[in-house]
């Protein structure tokens, strides 16, 4: 009996996951590949045939490609600074972590309050005499401004999660490695590149996978700042599901997001693989 006990204790959670996660998940897969009860690829061809698909796809990819590396660098810099602190470390971590407590929609609205026509940015520019009347930043004529605002909001919102993971990871690296590198001639930069980064690979894996998945699912911030002017994959899923009432195509979009997530997770796992025996 004691041998079975752990499994018994895990059973409710496992059942919950099976019923409320894997079952609906399976339904979505089936939905994406059927139409009117028939197996078909029509959902996918409808999706790719739609004029917004390509821009939604590439907007999502570009957002991820810009936001994630910027966040990675920022998180590494911030974590290194936090790591060096002797006092006030936890206080600073709390401050950095504040955006984590805000929902993505609220984050989008905060940045909307900055960028909209009657927003803070216009007020400041007007007060300083840079503009004589408020500008429309987030209009459809200037999609790149919306794109930039989304990047800013995303970076502001989700850098902390990476930083927290990296700070924890840096805490796991014994300081003797850094000292050894210092004694054996490495400069500060070389120590970071040759010792800290490689030893940080497990944490970088976690941080990057988590962040890339979040980036592919970007939605509320985009909606808040650009409505549908800047289409992204998650936004299109929402559109097809609720505006166009076509669950099949929505499911197909969901599959694309899933495929991207799995593919990039595998790439990250592969790139940052730590061979057995080479762990701390």
């Amino acid at each position, binding site marked *: 009996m004691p041998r079975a006990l752990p499994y018994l204790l895990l059973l409710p959670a496992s059942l919950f996951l099976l019923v409320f996660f894997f079952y609906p998940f399976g339904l979505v897969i089936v939905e994406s590949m059927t139409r009117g009860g028939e197996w078909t690829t029509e959902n996918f061809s409808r999706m790719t045939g739609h004029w917004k698909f390509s821009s939604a796809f590439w907007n999502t990819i570009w957002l991820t490609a810009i936001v994630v590396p910027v966040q990675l660098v920022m998180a590494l810099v911030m974590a290194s600074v936090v790591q060096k602190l002797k006092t006030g470390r936890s206080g600073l971590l709390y401050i950095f972590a504040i955006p984590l407590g805000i929902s993505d929609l609220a984050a989008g609205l905060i940045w909307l309050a900055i960028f909209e026509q009657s927003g803070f940015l216009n007020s400041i520019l007007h007060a300083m005499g840079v503009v004589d009347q408020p500008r429309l930043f987030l209009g459809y004529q200037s999609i790149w401004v919306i794109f930039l605002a989304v990047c800013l909001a995303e970076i502001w919102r989700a850098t902390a999660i990476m930083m927290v993971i990296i700070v924890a990871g840096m805490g796991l690296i014994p300081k003797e490695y850094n000292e050894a590198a210092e004694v054996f*001639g490495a400069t500060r930069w070389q120590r970071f590149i040759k010792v800290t980064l490689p030893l940080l690979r497990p944490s970088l894996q976690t941080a990057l996978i988590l962040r890339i998945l979040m980036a592919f699912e970007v939605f509320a911030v985009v909606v808040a700042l650009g409505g549908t002017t800047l289409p992204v994959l998650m936004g299109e899923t929402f559109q097809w599901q609720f505006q166009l009432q076509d669950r099949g195509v929505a499911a197909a979009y969901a599959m694309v997001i899933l495929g991207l997530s799995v593919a990039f997770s595998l790439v990250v796992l592969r790139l940052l693989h730590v061979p057995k025996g080479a762990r701390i």
Partner: protein
Amino acid sequence: MAEIAIKGVAKQFGDFTALHSVDLTIADQEFMVLLGASGCGKTTLLRIIAGLETPSQGEVWIGDRRVDHLPPRERGIAMVFQNYAVFPHLTVFENIAFGLRMAKLPQAEVTRRVTRTAELMHIEQLLKRYSGELSGGQRQRVAVARALAMEPDVILMDEPLSNLDALLRLEMRAELKGVLAESRTTTIYVTHDQVEAMSLADRISVMNGGYIVQADRPTQVYRNPAARFVGSFIGNPPMNFLPAQGTGDGRWQVAGQVFDGPKVEAAEFAIRPEDLHPAEAGLDAEVRVVEPLGPHTLVTAEVAGQPFRAVLESDRAISPGDVIPLAPIPDRIRWFDPDTHKAIQ
């Protein structure tokens, strides 16, 4: 030439003084051991020489260069860490090559030096492995090889053997001594293990409470402790101390026996446990515990109410409760000032 001179080096951590103005000169190619209990400042001193810690005061000279303001990499040193600090993400080869690559040596030279030091440390068959696949002893060898490959002026070692099991420590100790003597580098070696210190050192600096109490050849440190602390710290079992009453003219009464001693106001009598032998007349020792150790027997006793230890021939039958007169070898008796705890010459 890599003579090391430490001039008035002090270190405070907040209110705590880890080192009080330490002066020490280490000759070129000398093997200097810093010996002391934990918290005595020996590791702090080593880290100051390495450049991993900055002194609050004082100067550190290596050769004819003042180095205390230089980063570690510009000091011409290599170091072996207590936990080895063998990089887990690099193979043994790359670990040994680390410093050479930082110094941008040509590949051929890197390979030559790595191969040579790996052979010297008998780890040439491990070069492709990661540190996670090595035993503690093998990691230790990699750490030493990495230091030797630098062909440094000075090698610093921070308790390098303390994480090894007893047998391996004995083996590595002998090997280190041979390898380091051959490399002809100046070595500073930190340990709390007095046997290690005695067996390796050209000179031992005994440290206590942030001071260097005595820096001398191992036999001198053992035979002629400069201070009571050295006598009580070095030797297993340590030196015995007994109060002495002066009877004038350099004669001292110790536990009912009269000995010739220094002509001073007050003195404390001291003798090493192995410098005692049973005799017709001597210090009357009331035996408490008898521990046969094979070659000899360790006797714990009381003399005039003071704890007293003697290492005696094992062929003598002694049991607890016996009172045996123990005679000290006259020229092995040492005297200490009871106030300053310094040796009286």
